[in-house]
């Protein structure tokens, strides 16, 4: 009898794990395919041989400029920013046990955006300065929100509510800045606010790449504790998770990822918010879905950017398309949570 039950448990677990591994592999292939498409497609479609040659460092007339200076940075920005948004959204949603929780709601994005718009419109600052300011402001906003939400004991609900309040303040600041803006700086600011992969240069990507490569393993290592935080604070503590430390490590990693990605591409709407639930729905709950969520995020950004570039008679920045996908999902979530009495 015991042996039968053990077999049953093994089967259940193997099935779940098999599904997780298969889904993750498929997502990785999909993201890779989209990366290739980003390199191959453009105003001129160069032969695969030429693109590969350029990537290997050879000079091919015409193709070198298009691929190395335009398409490669654009692809890498989409890949890594999408990955970062996906991972950080998943971490917040899982840790705070709320599908509405994501870096936007917590106000990071609003803080970064307000700082970036201030730099562009008031200071007329360049891209590097704007990005730095966006990262710093994003991190500061989180600190302020965390400080205000701490109170006597940390409360998730309070953090989300304070975040919404701060977000409203930042948004009104942004609106004011846009109103007083000189006409020539307005397009840059608006493009930043929409989230776009246009005109990103290789040297802007370094910080984002390093952050992803360093912080993703940290979050993956904290996957199991994260899965227990998902069961509620009390269960996590009684199962031996050092909840305070774990939460700080996760929040810091997720916030940095999200802030750094926002600094490069601007806030790409809804990716952080969509990636986690899609990944969980596809891969199940056998393991923490850090990598799947990152891959879904990357695939969403790359696919949306390809569609924005080539699917319509006009070019759209990537943030517009992800926003269009995200809005109905948000409404669906709110309706469902409302029905379940969770709002």
């Amino acid at each position, binding site marked *: *009898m*015991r042996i*039968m*039950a*053990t077999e*049953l*448990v*093994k*089967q*259940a*677990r193997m*099935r*779940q794990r098999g599904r997780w591994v298969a889904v993750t592999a498929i997502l990785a292939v999909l993201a890779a395919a989209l990366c290739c498409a980003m390199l191959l497609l453009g105003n001129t479609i160069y032969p695969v041989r030429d693109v590969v040659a350029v990537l290997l460092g050879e000079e091919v007339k015409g193709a070198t400029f298009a691929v190395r200076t335009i398409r490669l940075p654009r692809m890498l920005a989409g890949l890594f920013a999408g990955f970062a948004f996906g991972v950080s959204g998943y971490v917040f949603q*899982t840790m705070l*046990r709320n599908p509405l929780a994501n870096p936007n709601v917590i106000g990071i994005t609003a803080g970064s955006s307000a700082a970036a718009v201030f730099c562009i419109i008031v200071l007329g600052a360049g891209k590097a300065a704007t990005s730095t300011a966006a990262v710093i402001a994003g991190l500061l906003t989180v600190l302020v929100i965390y400080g205000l939400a701490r*109170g*006597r*004991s940390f409360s998730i609900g309070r953090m989300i509510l304070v975040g919404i309040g701060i977000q409203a303040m930042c948004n009104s600041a942004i609106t004011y800045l846009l109103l007083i803006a000189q006409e020539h700086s307005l397009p840059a600011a608006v493009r930043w606010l929409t989230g776009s992969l246009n005109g990103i240069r290789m040297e802007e990507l370094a910080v984002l790449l390093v952050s992803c490569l360093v912080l993703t393993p940290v979050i993956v*290592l904290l996957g*199991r*504790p994260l*899965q*227990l935080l*998902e*069961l*509620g*604070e*009390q*269960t996590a*503590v*009684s*199962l*031996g*998770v*050092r909840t305070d430390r774990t939460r700080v490590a996760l929040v810091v990693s997720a916030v940095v990822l999200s802030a750094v990605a926002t600094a490069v591409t601007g806030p790409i709407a809804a990716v952080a918010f969509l990636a986690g639930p899609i990944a*969980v*729905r596809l891969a*199940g*709950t*056998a393991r923490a879905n850090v990598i799947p969520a990152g891959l879904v995020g990357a695939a969403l950004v790359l696919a949306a950017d390809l569609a924005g570039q080539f699917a319509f008679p006009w070019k759209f920045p990537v943030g517009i398309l992800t926003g269009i996908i995200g809005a109905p999902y948000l409404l669906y979530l709110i309706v469902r949570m409302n029905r379940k009495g969770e709002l």
Partner: protein
Amino acid sequence: MTSHEFRAERLIAGYGNRMILDGISLQIPSNKISVIIGANGSGKSTLLKALTRIIKPVSGEIWLDGKPLRAYPSKRLARIMGLLPQSPVVPEGITVADLVGRGRFPHQPLFGTWTKKDYEAVAEALEIMDIADLAHRHVDELSGGQRQRVWIAMVLAQQTDMLFLDEPTTFLDITYQIEILDLLTDLNRRYGKTIVMVMHDINLSVRYADYLFAMREGRLVAEGKPSEVVTSELIKDVFGLDCVVVPDPVSLAPSVVPMGRYHNGAEPVMETYMHAGTGAGR
């Protein structure tokens, strides 16, 4: 059957500046079922949380086998005592086997695959709770009673000698309440697990407890075997309720029959019933 010496010394604890526990000292009898009773706001849940390190006491000390609780590494402690909180959160889309498997965390390294022991512990927990056939199912589609079994199985997979449960039967129908309490009694009688729970229903507490702790305003007002401590005076003191204590015809444990303004035992039952009838028409 492993015994543990678990005691608390002059515990003061609460939330923020509001202290709820007012210097509680107690010893949990090893390998027995203890039940903490008290009115709403008496501090019984807070006591359970302090004993299971969910909240840190402001002063006082908890001792486990001669060592302060706070001196234990957190995973090690999680292999000795487990907790089922009052309303644990079910992640969306999680399966029974997966949720119960999460109870294995304190036995696993941070990274790495499951060992034979992990599978066996989960299987055993599912069997004890009689839910092995639900292993593949999603937790969100189970009934309240089944779900509670899943949660207890998760704490069992943790393989601890001591189990703390915060109102394990609230929100359940009476049938499920008895079922769950019977299962917990099995755990105690068969495996010698020390069980400590907070309960609302005074009569079920008395029936299932080997030992009772009665609380009022953050203090312990009585403790001991139910047959020795449950009297109408104690109930008046703890709950502020007038009652008659009679032997429960099924278990012979003391049973509390509450009195109210309409049912106070002063008038014959029939007359009271008729008064109540006219009262309703007013």
